[in-house]
């Protein structure tokens, strides 16, 4: 008898994983189907501004507004349970002219209507007290106390791990190619296999329109809105203490300057509508734009201190209200959590609650699990330990005494742990996103070969099979001598042929 799932979630980004974790509190058979090789490996969950928005930006009365504010509140407890670093830095929307100050009032009003706490409009002097390195051209700002910063993929991984711990199943490298309603359950097809489930939740981000349209529900479309970012070295991190926004436009919240939770400086994102859902490249124009506009807020940063750049694609819905598409579609049992762009990350835990309620209304029986464990096993971070703690740890497990990533001071013990945990790392990027090995100044030049060796050993594969991020992104091509041996045997064949 083929396994029948209660809920099959398509997409292991922050929305899909949050829904999985929420549902894992109940006696349900849950499966998350992800096309990429890892959690948060393909879409916006790994390439965004890493912010917990306060919630003054969305239009009042929208799902974005409600779920942003509700989600924001939930993060402190979630991060405590899931052992994820979070910093409530607060945010500033800075105005450089009287015109722009008018916009600040508008945002303030919106924030009040949305129920945002801790909002205030502050003068130039107050701004400079909070941010001593901000440009002197600042006139005033909207200060939001509840805004914060977090590692978005680190959080998503933690959520997935806890969901798996509590019984949710995950399959990777499984792109959904067809969904058919068969009576009172769905047949979800990937290239490799078929899954049966009573309910399907669509959390496929940029491809949530494709998935929705596959099942024959009332169609909608989602297009990519590209955002390019730069990360600067930790010695630039002092330049911003809060998340510094400029006044928003209709293309979005604009280019910000923000510290990251690890101490780097983040600049971006740009905002450009494109057509190709797979266009994940950075561009000269995009990066230059991010730099130029960011300098309006803080011109002191040294661009030469950039260590990496990346592009994220927002899943922007082509609907009239541009709001989140959350609800049961006109195909019974098929639930959308689609078109989730900013403030999607902040809203994720609240979206999960809402989806749970929608599923309940749609007939799903929710029986609470007695043994649900909201906490995941704490993560050992060598850099955060005292020397005494380190020594105790190394005595028990010498792998914690071997430093593999010298730029970020990451030990072999931490890397092994990242691989062995539920929903563990399987690739170089997987390790990078869990423990930061390769995210420092040298960008993996030093630790790369060592991490490849550890992955090969732990996963019991050849180093030739180790990938950067799954699929054909193999790091290495052949063993040294292979091409020569091939040539040598060709020469031999040729000689044999000629002598025949």
């Amino acid at each position, binding site marked *: 008898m083929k396994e029948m799932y209660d809920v099959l979630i398509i997409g292991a980004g922050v929305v899909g994983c949050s829904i999985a974790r929420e549902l894992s509190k109940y006696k349900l058979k849950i499966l998350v189907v992800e096309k990429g090789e890892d959690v948060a490996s393909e879409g916006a969950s790994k390439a965004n501004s890493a912010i917990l928005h306060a919630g003054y930006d969305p239009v009042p009365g929208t799902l974005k507004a409600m779920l942003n504010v509700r989600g924001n509140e939930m993060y402190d407890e979630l991060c405590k349970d899931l052992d994820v670093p979070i910093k409530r830095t607060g945010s500033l929307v800075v105005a450089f002219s009287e015109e722009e100050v008018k916009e600040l009032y508008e945002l303030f009003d919106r924030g009040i209507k949305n129920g945002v706490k801790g909002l205030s409009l502050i003068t130039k002097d107050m701004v400079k007290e909070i941010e001593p390195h901000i440009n002197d051209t600042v006139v005033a700002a909207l200060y939001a106390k509840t805004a914060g910063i977090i590692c978005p993929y680190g959080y998503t991984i933690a959520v997935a791990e806890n969901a798996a711990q509590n019984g949710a199943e995950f399959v990777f490298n499984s792109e959904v190619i067809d969904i058919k309603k068969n009576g009172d359950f769905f047949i979800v097809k990937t290239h490799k296999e078929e899954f049966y489930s009573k309910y399907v939740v669509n959390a496929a981000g940029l491809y949530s329109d494709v998935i929705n349209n596959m099942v024959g529900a009332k169609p909608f479309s989602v297009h990519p809105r590209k955002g390019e970012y*730069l990360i600067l070295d930790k010695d630039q991190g002092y330049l911003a203490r809060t998340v510094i926004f400029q006044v928003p436009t209709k293309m979005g919240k604009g280019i910000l300057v923000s510290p990251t939770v690890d101490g780097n400086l983040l600049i971006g994102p740009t905002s450009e509508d494109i057509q190709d859902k*797979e266009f*994940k*490249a*950075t*561009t*000269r124009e*995009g*990066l230059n734009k991010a730099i130029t506009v960011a300098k309006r807020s803080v011109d002191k940063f040294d661009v*030469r201190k*950039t*260590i*990496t*750049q990346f592009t994220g694609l927002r899943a922007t819905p082509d609907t009239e209200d541009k709001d989140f598409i959350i609800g049961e579609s006109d195909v019974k049992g098929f639930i959308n959590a689609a078109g989730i762009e900013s403030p999607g990350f902040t809203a994720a835990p609240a979206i999960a609650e809402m989806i749970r309620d929608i599923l309940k209304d749609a007939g799903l029986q929710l029986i609470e699990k007695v043994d649900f464990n909201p906490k995941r096993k704490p993560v050992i971070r060598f850099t955060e330990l005292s*020397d005494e703690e*380190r*020594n105790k740890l*190394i*005595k028990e497990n*010498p*792998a*914690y*005494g*071997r*430093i593999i990533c*010298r730029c970020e*001071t990451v030990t072999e013990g931490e890397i092994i742990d990242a691989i062995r945990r539920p929903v563990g790392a399987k690739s*170089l990027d997987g390790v990078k996103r869990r423990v930061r090995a390769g995210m420092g*100044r*040298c*960008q*993996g*030049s*030093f630790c*790369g*070969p060592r991490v*490849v*060796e550890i992955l090969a050993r732990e996963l019991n594969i050849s*180093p*030739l099979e180790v*990938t*950067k*991020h*799954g*699929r*054909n*992104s*193999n*790091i*290495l*091509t*052949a*063993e*040294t*001598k*292979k*091409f*020569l041996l*091939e*040539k040598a045997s060709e020469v031999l064949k040729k000689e044999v042929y000629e002598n025949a």
Partner: protein
Amino acid sequence: MLNYDIVIIGGGPAGLGAAVEAYEKGVKNIVIIERDKYLGGILEQCIHNGFGLQEFKEELTGPEYAQRFIDKVEEYDINVMLETMVLEITPDRIVKAVNSKEGVFTIKAGAIILAMGCRERPRGAIMIPGTRPAGILTAGTAQRYVNMEGYLPGKEIVILGSGDVGLIMARRLTLEGAKVKAVVELMPYSSGLTRNIVQCLEDFNIPLLLSHTVIEIHGKDRVEGVTIAKVDENREPIMETAQYISCDTLILSVGLIPENELSQKAGIELDPITGGPIVNEMLETSVPGIFACGNVLQVHDLVDNVTAEARMAANSAIRFIREGGFKKSNISVKAGKGIRYVVPQRINVDNIDKRIKFRMRPTDVYNNAILAVKSGDRYLLRQKRIRLTPGEMIDVNLSKEILKNADEKEGIVFLVEEG
């Protein structure tokens, strides 16, 4: 807390040279701290030859050169800590390190010699636009894979940067049966040794595209190709010249950066041009008793020079332990027209017996120029130099007699006068 007279951070050619010299000069309570599984540093993966022509009057490969020193270290039974990472050094010369056997431990050092070498500039630091597939790696990492780990990173290669590491890898990969389609160089000249241009590119008919750069990387999971373009006088790409080269690997040889994170955290002043510590004629940094030599001080082209520098640092460290310190620097040393930087950056002639060796690099290629040293309007030296190129370090020895003519207020300036 452990106690050593001299703590040497790094077991590559600089660290090894310093250790052997210190021991031979009578200071035996020393330790080399090395993060890798074996001594030798970067030489272990430099299996090509060209090392030791000055030091040993022989042409050796990297591992052979290193072994000469490793043999002495073993013969003298000098203390070595392998697979040990230094976490921190303090201005009062306490070294904190960690390994899997001892855990975290501290050492009180009579003197410290910094010999940490350098790291490579990665793609992100030069902001090449495009995708982020597998198949992009720095030349040193590629070298480690090919020569030590036993793996080839790709089959069809484009190399950005004609620095020595890039040139050496062009040859290495070609010898192993890969196809190197081009070496792309931003500047109008190569920064590598002429010898390497001939032996690594010309010998194999690998095109060297000067005044070109990579403007985009393509490929979703693995590199599929790069777009290159010619650049103008401002090193900006001329978009009309853009052309696509298909390849599965992009190797970057775009600069070496002295590895001074530890130095910075210890409050040691760094020279923004060299990337290494500011030192005096004793190779002492701005923190008394902490010395620097090798690539951590300035990026060298010849390991023989690294060994010479390391010996100097060792002798200075010994003098420091025995005499307690040196006279404060009173003459600044500056780079003038045509010179990019000079090491040491400050001196006091009273500290030396005979002469000071200054090392520097020119900013550009000069043929038949005059290398001059001035103090104010006065010339201390004028030397004809047939060829000056940024890829080759210049040595200038100035005797105590000559240096006594330097004016304290004016300092001394090294410059190039065109012929």
